């Protein structure tokens, strides 16, 4: 752990940080948590609002069973306890974009209990974050303040949309780990199909709890679970990008250190991150905190999920990224790096698996990660929009691994596939791109080069590294189709290296 520690120097000594996160993930569902309204993003304001969402008198919520199953699926993906009994409570607060005057949430009995996930730092090392709970709740509407200087408009399209609030333990120790945790969560929910994970569309957003402590205190907290070892936390609300999460934590940690070192104390409060200025600002203190007056929602029965249904959902779960990464390393022989890049995104992993099926997995990984992703990024395309299909790329990989073409020629074939499509083997055949492995043909080119370039031969005797010049000349003469290994072998032999 010490390799990854995040130590901040203060005037009174070193400091560390402790971070816990509450992530709101929008449940991937066509309709809302308690009404049949659509949830599509980007619709005209107030066009996806039912009588229930608008809190008309006498309207009542009815639970969307699909959203419940999505929460169970997510809980299983977080290796968490699924609670067979859970209950909805009303969280009462008054706000213009909350038509009911309360949010239906799960307070005392969440649908998912304790779990943990393995996350990966940028350097590929792993760390584990405990999950405290996941509960279902409805989203509020959206207040729009910038349409009119004197009025606030309210869009209720989001009102009632199902959210999963995923609460972590304070097991995150650096800004990078916070982003890594968020990325891992996003990968998991995308794999499961339980959340789109698009932060720009507000499908995932985080409340970040930050506190500071002296080195050694966190380890004491982990040993006995007592929060007294840690500093007072501040909660930064609604941070909506990976970069902002990191920036907000960095700023907040430094703010707390400066405050404490100047003789102040950190007050528990809710803060907002101002992305333009890169600072956090106080929103409300503990004294001003809402009293939500939670109580069981009398309009809904408790949720009871039979074990058999949980088992069914479990059986249908897709392979999760951490398992996939391990399989890529152990069974396909990929490097940790290649495996984790591929496993990080389900569509990419699926694409790769088709390319690798029956072909050389390492070459496949190399081609998907480098050539394909490089080209897709350049053109700003997603994997599902790739003009080269996984089947085509698999055939190309075969041509490389069986020495029919060289890697260099393969790049030309790839370009042709990208621009014109077609079958790789046919392209190679028709355009005469097959690699020349006929040693006689190579030898005659080599003999000719040696005869015509005596000074190069002399220099290579002094500096064997200059062999590359000859290789290049042979390749040039043979339009790149010569087998590079054969060229090398023959050159070395003829030049007596």
């Amino acid at each position: 752990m010490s390799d990854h520690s995040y130590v901040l120097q203060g005037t009174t000594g070193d400091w560390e940080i402790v971070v816990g996160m509450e992530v709101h993930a929008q449940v991937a569902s066509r309709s809302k948590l308690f009404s049949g309204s659509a949830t599509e993003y980007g619709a005209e304001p107030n066009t996806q609002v039912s009588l229930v969402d608008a809190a008309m008198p006498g309207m009542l919520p009815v639970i969307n069973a699909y959203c419940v199953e999505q929460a169970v699926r997510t809980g299983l993906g977080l290796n968490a306890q699924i609670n067979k009994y859970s209950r909805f409570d009303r969280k009462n607060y008054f706000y213009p974009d909350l038509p009911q005057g309360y949010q239906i949430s799960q307070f005392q009995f969440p649908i998912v209990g304790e779990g943990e996930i393995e996350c990966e730092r940028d350097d590929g090392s792993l760390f584990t974050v405990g999950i405290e709970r996941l509960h279902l709740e409805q989203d509020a509407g959206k207040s729009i303040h910038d349409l009119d200087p004197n009025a606030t408009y309210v869009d209720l399209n989001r009102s009632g949309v199902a959210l999963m609030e995923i609460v972590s333990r304070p097991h995150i120790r650096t800004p990078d780990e916070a982003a890594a945790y968020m990325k891992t969560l996003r990968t998991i929910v995308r794999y499961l199909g339980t959340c789109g994970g698009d932060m720009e569309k507000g499908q995932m957003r985080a409340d970040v709890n930050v506190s500071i402590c002296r080195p050694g205190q966190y380890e004491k907290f982990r040993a006995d679970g007592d929060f007294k070892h840690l500093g007072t936390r501040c909660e930064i609300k609604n941070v909506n990008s990976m970069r902002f999460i990191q920036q907000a934590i960095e700023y907040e940690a430094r703010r707390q250190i400066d405050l404490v070192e100047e003789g102040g104390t950190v007050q528990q409060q809710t803060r907002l991150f101002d992305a333009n200025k890169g600072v956090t600002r106080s929103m409300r203190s503990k004294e001003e905190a809402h009293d939500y007056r939670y109580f069981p929602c009398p309009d809904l029965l408790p949720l009871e999920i039979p074990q058999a249904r949980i088992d069914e959902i479990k059986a249908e779960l897709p392979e999760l990224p951490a398992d996939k990464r391990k399989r890529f390393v152990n069974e396909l022989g990929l490097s940790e790096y290649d495996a984790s890049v591929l496993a990080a995104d389900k569509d990419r992993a699926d694409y790769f698996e088709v390319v690798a099926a029956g072909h050389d997995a390492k070459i496949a990984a190399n081609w998907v990660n480098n050539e394909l992703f490089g080209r897709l990024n350049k053109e700003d395309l997603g994997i599902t929009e790739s003009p080269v299909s996984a089947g085509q790329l698999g055939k190309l990989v075969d041509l490389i691994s069986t020495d029919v073409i060289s890697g260099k020629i393969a790049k030309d074939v790839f370009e042709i596939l990208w621009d014109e499509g077609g079958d790789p083997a046919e392209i190679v055949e028709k355009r005469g791109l097959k690699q020349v492995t006929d040693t006689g043909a190579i030898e005659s080119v080599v003999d000719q080069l040696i005869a015509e370039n005596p000074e190069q031969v002399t220099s290579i005797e002094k500096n064997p590294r200059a062999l590359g010049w000859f290789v290049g000349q042979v390749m040039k003469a043979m339009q790149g189709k010569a087998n590079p290994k054969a060229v090398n072998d023959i050159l070395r032999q003829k030049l007596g290296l």
Partner: protein
Amino acid sequence: MTDFLTLSLAEITARLKAREISATEVATAALAAAEASQGELNAFTAFDRSRTLAMAEASDQKLAKGEGGLLEGAPIAVKDLFAVEGVPTTACSHILDGFKPPYESTVTSKLWAEGGVFLGKTNMDEFAMGSSNETSYYGNVINPWRAKGSEAKLTPGGSSGGSAAAVAAHLCYGATGTDTGGSIRQPAAFTGTVGVKATYGRASRWGAVAFASSLDHPGPFAKTVKDAAILMQAMSGHDPKESTSLPLDVPDFVAAAAASVKGKRIGVPKEYRMDGMPAEIETLWQQGVDWLKAAGCEIVDVSLPHTKYALPTYYIINPAEASSNLARYDGMRYGLRVEGQDLTETYEKTRGEGFGHEVQRRILMGTYVLSAGYYDAYYLKALKVRRRILEDFDQAFAQCDALLTPSTPSAAFELGSKSADPISMYLNDIFTVTANIAGVPAMSVPAGLDASGLPLGLQVITPALDEATMFSVGAALEDAAGFSHTPEKWW
């Protein structure tokens, strides 16, 4: 001649079916009687004449073809808590001024599906908070009954006072009510009508303005037990739009109302014998016991030991839920809006002017009992007592099939006599709240008159889902009491 207005629901539907009278004729007469009564009784808050006549016309067409439902052609009044599409639905609160719902409540939809003809919206306590109808924004209803030799204006009870008065005054053949702590049974007792609430979840709450959701029970007012069974039958049934609606078939309540009670064990709970209860109530209760004994019932003494905690428990759970349910009235999407300097002031003014005193009192009490630091002592404790009260009923019903109690601790009182003292007003519900807390069926049956000639009711409570026994015992009491009194028309 409009004598037919005094007929029971069962009688008028028989005549309609036999084509001895037309639904249009009945509706026209009922509308005229209801409108004419308004100046004195103030039982209604809205009419929709063209809708009423169109529904009657549709009933006539069905009846002409020999078709029609349980209520075909009978005018029914609707408590203003139920959404009737396109008709003002205000829960008699200023804050819902001008609100015309674009939807129809499940209960009224079911009544119309059975051929009921919408007569009008009835007056009630604001958001059903009250026991005398005095908290209505539209002024109180006057009980059609008067004490002998007196012209003093009496309360019809509350909160469903308009519905009770409309049935008692023969302005309609039945009416909907809601009973959260006695809001059907108490006004029924005060007006000599039959009032029923079935098991919680039997009739859907969808489209009825929410008051205290876990206690709200829709139900009917009727002239007879049989009529009440017909109406309850019509308004019951599973509603997929309501999560606490019972996913069960509805038993034949009408047949139950005609069934024998021989051999039924009737429990008499000793805790309902309150100190200071008027002798007349005591006497009537004993009379009820004797009637049922004579009808072949076995009388059992039972105990509901937590009864004394019922009213305090009720007055914690009820305002707690109400405070949350009423948060949606913010003046933004419907109803009253009183503009202020800024948004906060607009909210404050709207809610300050839109809600009456009793409503504000409940919102404050509810907010208080749910607040951090008080929650455990009040709300959580109340939930625990609620469980004990449920257990009381379970234990009592292990020994008997139905409980017999008085409906109210007194007959109808004078308007204004209790409105200054909320506690004495709340005590009106002392015999009725337990059935709401437990969610069990209960009804009030008119059983006699007090010395001043005002009606008194007896209450029958049965185990959850056993409305059948309730209706049969109610019918036995009705038979024995031979209650045929009707208020002398003075309005």
